[in-house]
């Protein structure tokens, strides 16, 4: 197992690549998945509350009603009746809404309501960008509108009665319940998103790691030295294959395990069969970058080229797999192209696997197997190309003169 151990030592020397691509990107995917708010079905609806200040220079029933109306939807903050204090409170964000009720406002408002003329104006300050401020202003507006309506409709009603009735009217709120649909966003969906995004992690990580490993081990000089040794070719190739598989398996296990640990509820809400088939689909996907890395090694691609191929192809495949933008909103033409990419079939397999029952039927498993089959076909095609390249490389070097002889095998 000398070659196998040597390959792992080589990989250890290039530890930066698995650290950046596999560990780093998997955490990035994790944070992205966690940052999504898919709804919280187990909590009650809580309306937003803003912070307000009222400077009541009127002290009438109407102004007191405004204070009561505001207290139902916000939290009061004390602000001194001073122009500079107003500016500070608003500018520094101490309040979302500042209301100044001028002296005599209540009487003027009642008279205007009974006569049907325009209501007197209030001094109100809130930012156009503050949703809370607009919401609090709307609460005051609703209350005043209700008072005005009651006074107009009942000319005999006292101002205090109108205020009470208005507060009673605006105090009624609609009952709110959060409902989740069957296709609702759960933690399992976050996990599924993480798996989708992992196409980039896995593709870039495995391609770069395997590319670097095979290129280093296959460097003409050292490979020739190995070939002059008594180590059988098949043993050499098998040990190299095993090393590549170990690196791939690490990337797969790490990526999947991190997701499983970060989303424990997803693990409990999904069936064992679902989790298992997701993991298997991920492994089938991992074999594609393994083959591409092997191809890069046969082409003697430099570390820079391996990085470029891993990143660019990883981004394209993950994008066309729907990891960055949902496939639902992509145009039919893009969807057709996406079907030619492995990311699409991987995500399809994971999506189907995530909703498997505990005892899945054959009908449920066959589509997953079909998607995995497509992934394995991708791998087979790339591997065949890589083997052809390896063969051509040998043939060319033995057919091109003395300089070429130096690069043989």
């Amino acid at each position, binding site marked *: 197992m*000398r070659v196998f151990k*040597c390959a792992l*030592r*080589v990989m*250890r*020397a*290039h530890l930066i690549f698995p650290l950046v691509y596999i560990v780093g990107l998997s955490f990035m995917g994790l944070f992205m998945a966690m940052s999504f708010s898919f709804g919280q079905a187990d909590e009650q609806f809580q309306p937003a509350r803003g912070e307000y200040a009222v400077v009541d220079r009127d002290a009438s029933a109407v102004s007191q009603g405004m204070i009561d109306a505001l207290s139902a939807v916000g939290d009061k903050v004390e602000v001194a009746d001073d122009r500079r204090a107003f500016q500070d409170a608003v500018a520094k964000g101490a309040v979302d809404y500042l209301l100044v009720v001028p002296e005599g406002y209540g009487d003027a408002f009642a008279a205007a309501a009974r006569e049907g003329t325009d209501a007197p104006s209030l001094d109100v300050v809130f930012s156009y960008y503050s949703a809370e401020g607009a919401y609090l202003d709307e609460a005051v507006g609703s209350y005043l509108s209700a008072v005005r309506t009651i006074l107009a409709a009942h000319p005999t009603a006292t101002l205090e009665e109108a205020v009470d009735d208005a507060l009673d009217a605006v105090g009624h709120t609609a009952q709110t319940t959060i409902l989740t649909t069957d296709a609702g966003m759960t933690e399992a969906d976050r996990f599924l998103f993480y798996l989708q995004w992992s196409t980039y992690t896995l593709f870039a990580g495995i391609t770069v790691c395997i590319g670097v490993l095979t290129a*280093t081990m296959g*460097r003409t*000089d*050292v490979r*020739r*030295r*190995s*070939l*002059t*040794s*008594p*180590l*059988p*070719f098949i043993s050499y190739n098998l040990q190299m294959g095993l090393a590549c598989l170990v690196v791939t398996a690490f990337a797969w296990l790490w990526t999947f395990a991190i997701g499983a640990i970060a989303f424990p509820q997803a693990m409990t809400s999904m069936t064992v069969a679902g989790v298992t088939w997701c993991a298997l689909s991920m492994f089938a996907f991992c074999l594609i970058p393994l083959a591409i890395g092997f191809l890069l090694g046969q082409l003697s691609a430099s570390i820079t080229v391996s990085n470029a191929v891993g990143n660019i192809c990883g981004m394209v495949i993950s994008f066309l797999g729907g990891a960055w933008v949902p496939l639902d909103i992509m145009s039919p033409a893009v969807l057709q192209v996406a079907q030619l990419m492995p990311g699409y079939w991987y995500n399809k397999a994971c999506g189907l696997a995530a909703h498997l029952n505990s005892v899945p039927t054959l009908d449920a498993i066959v589509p997953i197997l079909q998607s995995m089959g497509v992934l394995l076909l991708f791998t087979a095609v790339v591997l065949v190309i890589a083997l052809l390249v390896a063969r051509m490389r040998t043939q060319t070097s*033995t*057919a*091109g*003169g*003395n300089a*070429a*002889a*130096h690069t*043989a*095998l």
Partner: protein
Amino acid sequence: MNIVDVKNLVKRYGTTLALDHFNMEIAPGEVFGLLGPNGSGKTTAINCILQLLTYDKGSIELFGEKMSPTRYDLKRCIGVVPQNVAVFEELTVRENIDYFCGLYISDAAERRACVNDAIEFVGLQDYVKHRPKKLSGGLLRRLNIACGIAHKPELAFFDEPTVAVDPQSRASILQGITAMSERGTTVVYTSHYMEEVEEICSRIMIMDKGRTLAIGTNAQLKIMTGIGERIEVDVLELPEAARAKVQGLDCVQSADYDGHVLRITCGNGQHNVSDVLGILRTFDVTPGRIWAEPPTLNDVFLEITGRDLRD
């Protein structure tokens, strides 16, 4: 029984004939020098012997048995020190030697002893934990050699192992190869440095265009080409008649006078210097400095392969 026995080897690269019925026999314990201009077929011959290249015709026997790519028993007895430094940048000096030695020796204890011996042999004790990037050119070459000979091969191929190394490292490498030979290892040594080959090789082959042009010991090659010594005499004035008389000597191949120095190239002869001086005396020419140099392997090489520039 020869250690290496190559008969009528033919190798073509497309339409180019790299080896043209090439023959080579190397006896046990020999340090065999393989010389030839660039593109003469040296590396191709070695690659064919090592089964890194296929060949069109001929036979290769090592240790009296037919060599093939799957003769791992024969490969176990061979060590290769390639022209380019073939080590892993990612491994330390010890790890590199251990890896390549491990391809030959599976027993850990035996391998450890061999690796230690190899490190001592090339004098890399102070650098065992260094990575190749931190080694100088000479140390790298020594590491390259250690990787090739750590398993104590019976037959070792050294392909220009002293390229771009300083004189001290070169001397150390040559000393090591001589020591290996004294321990019974058969060595095939290729180099463009003629003085090295002259110094360590017991037999030398000069090849060109895939064919053997000459083979023999250093002395045999010099006799074979008919080149004797080269004589230079400082004289202030030399009559043309004197120069013509010198030129007329049987042993003299050429005699040129450039105004201060008389340069004479001799063939094989017993009394070249005294014959030349006798003629000068008869013309009352008093020589200043007299300098006689025996022929070098370089002279032999150029005589055999020609002085035309190669690719």
